[in-house]
């Protein structure tokens, strides 16, 4: 499944990050790499606030659809 399908409060492990090269690189720097845990802490009209490591990252739905995850 992708990150976009996750609901508020759910946790998941990142499997793969896809999408545009530059964005993927930026997401990687922010900690979005395979194996990392993410938690959806907020949601607003398809855009999400995610907890990765100790930071909060806001992403839009298009970006969330490019991130494959395994729900835990």
């Amino acid at each position, binding site marked *: 499944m992708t990150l976009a399908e996750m609901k508020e409060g759910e946790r998941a492990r990142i499997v793969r990050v896809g999408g545009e090269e530059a*964005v993927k690189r930026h997401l990687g*720097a*922010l900690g979005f790499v*395979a194996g990392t845990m993410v938690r959806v802490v907020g949601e607003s009209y398809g855009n999400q606030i995610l907890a990765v490591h100790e930071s909060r990252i806001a992403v839009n739905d298009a970006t969330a659809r490019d991130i494959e995850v395994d729900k835990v």
Partner: protein
Amino acid sequence: MEKSVKIALAGNPNSGKTTLFNALTGSEQYVGNWPGVTVEKKDGILVGHKEVVIQDLPGIYSLSPYSLEEKVSRRFLVEEGPDAILNIVDGTNIERNLFFSTQLAELGLPMVMAVNMMDVVKKNGDKIDFDRIAKALRCEVVGISALKNEGGREAAEKAVEMAKKTVVEKGPGKLPDVPHVFSGSVEHAIAHIEESIQGKVPARSIRWYAIKIFERDRDIIKKLGIGVGEMKHLEEHIRDCEKELGDDAESIITNQRYDFIKRLMDKSLALNEKRKGKPTMSDRIDKVVTHRILALPIFILSLCVMWFLAVAEKGPGTILTDWANDGFLGDGWHLPFSTHECREEGKYKGMEFEDAQGVFARNDASKTAWEEAYLEKLNEGKADAEKVEEMPEEIDEKVAAGVVAKGVFVEDEETGEPLAKECDCENCAKKRESGEECEGCGCGCGEPDIWDVDFAAYKAAKEFEEPDPKQFGVWVPGVGALITEGLEKAGVGDTVKSLVVDGAWGGVATVLGFVPVIFIVFLFLAFLEDCGYMARVAFIMDRLLRRFGLSGKSFIPMLVGKGCGVPAVMAARAIENERARRMTVILATFVPCGAKTVIIAMFAALFFREQWYVAAMMDVVGIAIIILGGIALKKTRFFAGEASSFVLELPAYHMPTVSGVWHHTWNRLKGYILKAGLVIFPACVFLWFVMHFDWSLNLLADEEIEKSILHDFGTWIAWVFKPLGFGSWQGAAASVSAEIAKEQATATLKLVTVGMEGASSGAHIQNFFASISEFPKLAALSFMMFNLFVPPCMVAIAVTFREMGSQKWGWLAIGFQLFVGYALALCVYQFGVLFAGGGFGVCTVMAALVFLVCLWAVVRPARKAAVKT
């Protein structure tokens, strides 16, 4: 002299980097809680060490260029090479922050890692093993708290020490010890690459370059001039790794970096178990602030607060502006919170200044009215030629005795109606104090104050002279008054006096007069940014703005634009998507800025007293242009394509520090004040010159403005403005001078309409519009809208050109803004005239065509493919 030591301060956004920089250098510096506020690197001298330069880089997440800021930092670190790096790391989010640190370590420069926010780390009950991290990353590690000013200096001094030691100990050619973080096969491939690029890159940074080549970084490969054949050989090694690990090279590097950090953290970071997974304070605030339904009202409410503070009637912004214009920069002002009683003997002794003004206004009205009545009596039955125009010195007592002026009153400044009576009886005074309407005691209080004046009353009224503010309380003279006084004392001629007072100072004073409003806007925005709310605004607004081709991050430049367009255009740098950034630059200045509100205020007062909504509508029109303009631009080949991603770190909320907010506000305001000195000053002198001289350089009196250079210039280009309803030299001259600074439109308009009929400059302007159009209100509206929505002042235009990146893009931006302003004024005027029954003409057809073009630009189907720029 000792050789200077350069220390680069590098770290993630919101790691407290700028706070540390301020503490180390004591210099003024932009501090923000908005990811990526520092765009250019800034230098400062380390306090107490004259030979040490601290260089503040933009906060970035990685050395792979993603945004403009990352490019700036990377170029600096790799190419210019500081003597040492002071890497600041957020101790509360150390895992993510170390990703950047591993990259920095590979540059092979001496490095000190300052783990910031140790006070919070300790409070949370977490433990970090500095020694282990230092050993793994081959650098020094110290704990600091930038906010509490603890440990920062020691960290910087350690970096200086390391920089000096490295120069002495290690000669050129000796390789530094850099961490190896990757798995066997990757390290193998990197070793191969290192071998093949030896000699092409600085020896100490060879590992960093090799990793970049492994990642197939196009910029680096091009810069090193690695040929196709050579790359093919290296490609084999890279592809072997990719095959073995089942991922692309870049992901391998990123993943293995995080693997390395994770292994390191497992041993060196002990998180307090109790805290794990619990929502933080920030999370709880976000639940409300980014709530589906509440988010927008909360945002709008915060804007309303800003609105009230800055521009609302009787709000602090207006009070401060009045004080700045009339008091500080103008004639002078009374010290507040002291009595303003008159000290001098005379009519006003013991009176408050406001009361004295009221008494004078009443007597002045009596005097003027009676004199008018007297002249009328005197001229009764006389032929036009014999009529006496001015009050004679000697009053004919016989005639005067019978003259009574009836129905005299003092006009209310706003409504023009007679002022209400205010009696002194105890009852009324009490009621007034408690804010009640004062009626019913039979003294006539609250009714219109209208009276008659006979000769005796006139003689009494004549005795009252205008109260001199200097005789009341503590009077502080204004800068304007001081300049005038100084020039008079120096005995300079009228020409010089006019040049200095009307030309130079007048222009500069109008610009400085907006400082209060702009200051309040910037102060408020700085607070919102520093506490972390602005990042949430970008998140909330992203969905909406995306439809217009903009980004959620475009909202901040637009808000800044309410104050001044120049910092607004620069604030767009934080947007990493190039298309959205350029569109934001083009559109942000359509928000009426502080200077434009002056134009709005004047026209609202002169032409739209009954249409109170016109002033507020201008902001709405600005927003509408941004929306429709965004839609239209997105459909052109320049901006086509989906701006699909939005990724933004939301920093934890915290109470901003006073010094942080102040630095932040001052940095934006500084630009505006400098503009007054560097651009407006010479421009106003030039404008004064073309207004006061003719072609043979003769000085002209104010009434002779029709002989001036400005008049001729206006006449040449007046035809351009004909279809807009103000095609006369005055309209043209005012519009052109508005490009120097927007508020100049009102000042010039006052000057060029001096020849019009009317008692005041306001009446001059009203009569001017009446003289050039059958529909003066429409012409005035068209003039106002033209000046609000064409390109902003020349300072903003210059900044727009710079930020757009090239002449072509700059002209595109300015051309678009010119078209919008002209088209809007044209359509408003021509359709207005048509509906008002003014008939149909060539210009109406022109307006209709322009309207259709705009409509088509907005509704036509979008293009699919983006053009590479």
